[in-house]
């Protein structure tokens, strides 16, 4: 393989995992933007999505399309339910209570999954059966292509939704000034619920795409993925949606190149090194707004 081909292959790998990080990071960022909560249970939603896909395909023998629907819908409902049960009763409580609750929810989901499905991994049947296409002498695997297209389309839809619809405008208003948004007649509960639904749906899509690349479901798979997506959100500027996308791709590419130069053992370390550097040098992230304490 020529050097150029290797570089191209690694860029493709980076973009593929990066687009999944981006989808997950978007959920982190949206939720942070609206209720300033670092929702550490977000990564575990992906784990639940992966199990749902496995259940649908391996156990219920459903068509992959239905499996995808089950996973995405299941994640959406789970995300909304978590908000209703765990976070909504704490509205008005100190932020630290909310954060600790999120960590609790994360442990709950991981342990519940272990109890139900066992600690060992379940292998997920292939969701996407698409042959590789050859572009300019380079092979692009089917899953990479589908992942990039799906993630791209999801991000485009999200961007339109947030910037050009009434609900999207309400979300931005709540994220900027909750009190003022209420005075415009925005129903805060509905808006928060919608934000969780949207973020969790993206996580659901992410879980399906992740399962295509790594077709295994296990109870703790969401932890590392969630953490990396969190780093991506912070790198891009938490609260900023374009930031989450840029951050996701940046983390994916960074990992791919670290692996490409033969340091794959350092892959995770590099991601967290990036987090440390961002926090030291530019705590607001690449596209984040300067932070103001709310008075």
């Amino acid at each position, binding site marked *: 393989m020529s050097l150029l081909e290797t570089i191209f292959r690694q860029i493709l790998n980076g973009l593929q995992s990066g687009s999944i990080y981006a989808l997950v990071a978007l959920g982190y960022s949206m939720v942070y933007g609206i209720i300033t909560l670092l929702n550490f249970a977000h990564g575990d939603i992906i784990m639940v999505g992966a199990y749902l896909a496995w259940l649908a395909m391996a156990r219920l023998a459903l068509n992959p399309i239905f499996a995808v629907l089950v996973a995405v819908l299941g994640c959406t409902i789970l995300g909304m339910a978590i908000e209703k049960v765990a976070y909504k009763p704490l509205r008005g409580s100190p932020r630290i209570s909310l954060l600790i609750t999120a960590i609790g929810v994360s442990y709950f989901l991981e342990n519940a999954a272990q109890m139900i499905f066992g600690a060992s991994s379940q292998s997920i049947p292939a969701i996407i059966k698409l042959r590789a296409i050859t572009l300019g002498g380079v092979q692009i695997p089917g899953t990479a292509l589908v992942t990039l297209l799906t993630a791209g389309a999801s991000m485009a839809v999200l961007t339109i939704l947030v910037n050009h619809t*009434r609900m999207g*405008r*309400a979300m*931005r*208003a709540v994220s*900027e*000034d909750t*009190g*003022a*948004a*209420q*005075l*415009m*007649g*925005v*129903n*805060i509960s509905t808006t928060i619920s919608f934000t969780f639904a949207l973020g969790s749906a993206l996580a659901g899509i992410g879980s399906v795409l992740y399962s295509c690349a790594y077709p295994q479901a296990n109870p703790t798979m969401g932890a590392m993925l969630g953490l990396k997506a969190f780093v991506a959100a912070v790198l891009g500027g938490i609260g900023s949606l374009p930031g989450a996308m840029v951050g996701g791709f940046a983390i994916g590419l960074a990992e791919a190149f670290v692996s490409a130069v033969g340091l794959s053992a350092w892959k995770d370390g590099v991601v967290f090194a990036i987090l440390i550097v961002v926090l030291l040098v530019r705590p607001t992230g690449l596209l984040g*707004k300067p932070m103001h304490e709310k008075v």
Partner: protein
Amino acid sequence: MSALLQVDSIEVFYGRIRAVKGVSFEVREGEIVSLIGANGAGKSTILKTVSGLIRPKTGKIEFLGQDITKAEPHAIVRRGIAHVPEGRRVFARMSVMENIEMGAYVHGKAAEEELENAFARFPRLRERRRQLAGTLSGGEQQMLAMARALMSKPALMMMDEPSMGLSPILVEQIFDIISELRAAGTTILLVEQNANKALRITDRTYVLETGRVTLSGESRTLLESDEVKRAYLGGKG
């Protein structure tokens, strides 16, 4: 004439501190009423309580004859109360146009006619409609906050310190606009520290001191009262 807004001996607490100690007042249709008083008298708290952002511990608030004491803020806006908050609180990261559209949120979409009205009343906003609201000057932001509140077509418009932090010329302009709104038939409840200005453009005034109404009546009469002159107008009294 029956009252549009009837506030009946409300008490509001911040934790253990009683910020509003049994305040009653009313605003009748077509009137412009002001609440004046020093910092910390409870004026803003009262407006926030009326719009549902804070819950009173005791007392009752009626709007158009219906009890809204326990209603959610968004439901209160729908009933026809608009609140221009202290410090304007425009959405700085949204364009001027989007801010105005947010004002019409309860109606779904901003009606073409309403937009025209808003831009006719505030021509500066038309020029700047694509600009981010955060880049506007203080006076322009105040106008935007007022335009935004009017988009909900309120039966009652509450304004909290609209003149705060503005240059004297701008203060003049803002008060002119308030008088125009009133002339156009909007009922207004105005909170002001600038007692002199407030007394000159309003029909009736309630004077607040540390959470209590200490004086109330026709603004014209209060303007002449020795007590008000001494405490709020810097007069010899």
